[in-house]
């Protein structure tokens, strides 16, 4: 296009490489540190481990309950995610494709949920979940996760359904399909790109959610992953098993990294198209 001098090309690369190192190095440091003993951690922070301490991972998994936290998180996130997608798709389909009294009102009512910071609802929500006897239960947390994922997911999917062509739907109706068959057999498969975007977006949101479980789950055996990690950190001040905590972080970060690298295109698209539409 236009001339870029050699000097500026070199300086550009220097800045870009520099930032890449700043982003990556803390994670590499964490991964190799998680194989060190506590002594090595304290006396030579930069050095690689002398011997690989696999036991750190065993302690993190069992003694520090990372395995349990991981399981708890899956028990909550998988149903919450699937239900969010199906419930939102149903509502979005109706809002996008049918004319009825109050349609615009309902759409904006769902939309308004995106305006409010969760902190405003926190105490009444805590009170409500308590009254429903759902504090410290997985189903309580699942319902709350779904409810707070609805506004954005419905908003996004309504837009998505509006872009889909009507001909296929109409010909299915001509062929005698009932509305339910039209939705589940025709519309849902056609909406799968939108569902995938929202699936990724909500999965990350739920997987990394911290404030809601912090308030709604206080029973240690039912902690979510992020909560359990924070709990481990706070415990270090009297337990001093730093190497297990490094190992726990590695256990959590490496799968995230692998999933991210595999699906990075979809993940970036899911998050940014999501963000730009909101």
């Amino acid at each position, binding site marked *: 296009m236009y001339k870029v001098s050699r000097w500026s090309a070199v300086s550009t690369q220097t800045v870009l490489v520099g930032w890449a190192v700043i982003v990556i190095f803390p994670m590499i440091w964490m991964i190799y540190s998680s194989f060190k003993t506590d002594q090595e951690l304290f006396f030579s922070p930069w050095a690689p481990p002398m011997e690989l301490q696999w036991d750190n991972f065993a302690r993190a998994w069992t003694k520090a309950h990372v395995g349990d936290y991981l399981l708890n998180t899956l028990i909550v996130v998988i149903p919450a995610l699937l239900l969010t997608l199906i419930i939102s798709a*149903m*509502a979005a389909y*109706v809002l996008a494709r049918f004319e009825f009294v109050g349609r615009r009102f309902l759409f904006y009512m769902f939309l308004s949920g995106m305006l409010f910071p969760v902190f405003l609802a926190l105490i*009444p*929500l805590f009170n409500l979940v308590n009254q429903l006897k759902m504090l410290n239960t997985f189903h309580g947390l699942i319902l709350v996760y779904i409810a707070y994922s609805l506004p954005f997911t419905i908003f996004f999917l309504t837009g998505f359904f509006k872009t889909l062509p009507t001909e296929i739907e109409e010909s299915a109706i001509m062929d005698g399909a009932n509305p339910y068959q039209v939705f589940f057999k025709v519309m849902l498969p056609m909406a799968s790109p939108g569902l995938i975007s929202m699936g990724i977006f909500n999965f990350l949101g739920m*997987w990394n959610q911290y404030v809601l479980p912090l308030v709604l789950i206080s029973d240690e055996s039912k902690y979510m992953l*992020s909560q359990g990690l924070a709990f481990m950190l706070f415990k270090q001040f009297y337990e001093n098993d730093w190497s297990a905590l490094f190992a726990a972080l590695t256990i959590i970060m490496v799968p995230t990294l692998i999933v991210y690298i595999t699906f*990075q295109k979809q993940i970036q698209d899911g998050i940014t198209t999501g*963000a730009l539409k909101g």
Partner: protein
Amino acid sequence: MRRNKYGIILPFLAPALILYSLFVIYPYSQAMYVAFTKWKGLRKSPRFVGLDNFEKMLGDDKFWNALSNNLIYLFVLPIVTLGFALFMAFMISQKVRFNNFYRVTYFFPQVMSVVAIGILWSFVYHPTIGIFSSLLKAVGIKNPPVWLGDPDTALWSIVAVTVWQSAGFFMVIFMAGMLSIPKSLYEAAALDGAGRGATFFRITFPLLWENTRSSLVFITVIAMDMFGITFTMTQGGPDRSTDVLATLLYEHAFLHSRFGYATSIAMVYFIIVIVLTLLIFRVTRRETIEF
């Protein structure tokens, strides 16, 4: 063709409507009332006290301290994060070598849990096991800062982590905008002899208006929140130097059971977010350039 359409509308809307009304609308509307009550714990019931909570807030040093920390974030984060993100987005969209690698790498912290990031960085900053302090000692600095342990450096250490986490996300948002700018504009600019700087300020930046505006709203929301990172890294300390409205209201609510007062702080938090969002949309409203 739409015979009996309510036979599908009602059952399809019902689950979303029920969950949303119960767990979202109801708590938010209750909060509007709770903010004007004294409510000490779940066993008691809220008692209406009018504007007492807000009056108390005016004379509450902890509140002003937390708010001023939010204001620092609101001022610093947009400039540093968005400026840096924009700069990198421009560099990378120039088709430099390895641009895909950079894009994937820079974005990664965005998908990590904020708790994992908080813990990772409290290790990095740690005075004995951390890498910063030992690096500084190695180059001859006898008493390196204790970062998170010192009220003078703690807030800035958190700023650095937030930039580290979110710059890649905003970079990708800006890149999405840059990709939609037609090449012909750049070619015309090159023919006119425009250099990199002129191209950026005359063409790229003005055409990124929409992306800049959404980015400003997002970074405002981030700067007002800051809960996860603060709560894991410093719990608002040392000496409340990193306390923000979210951590302060959490403390009032779940450590001292001051539900009414905590909700009134949340109300102020909410009003600030809304006002700033409207302001951003107001100030940045102008003709979107069609191309």
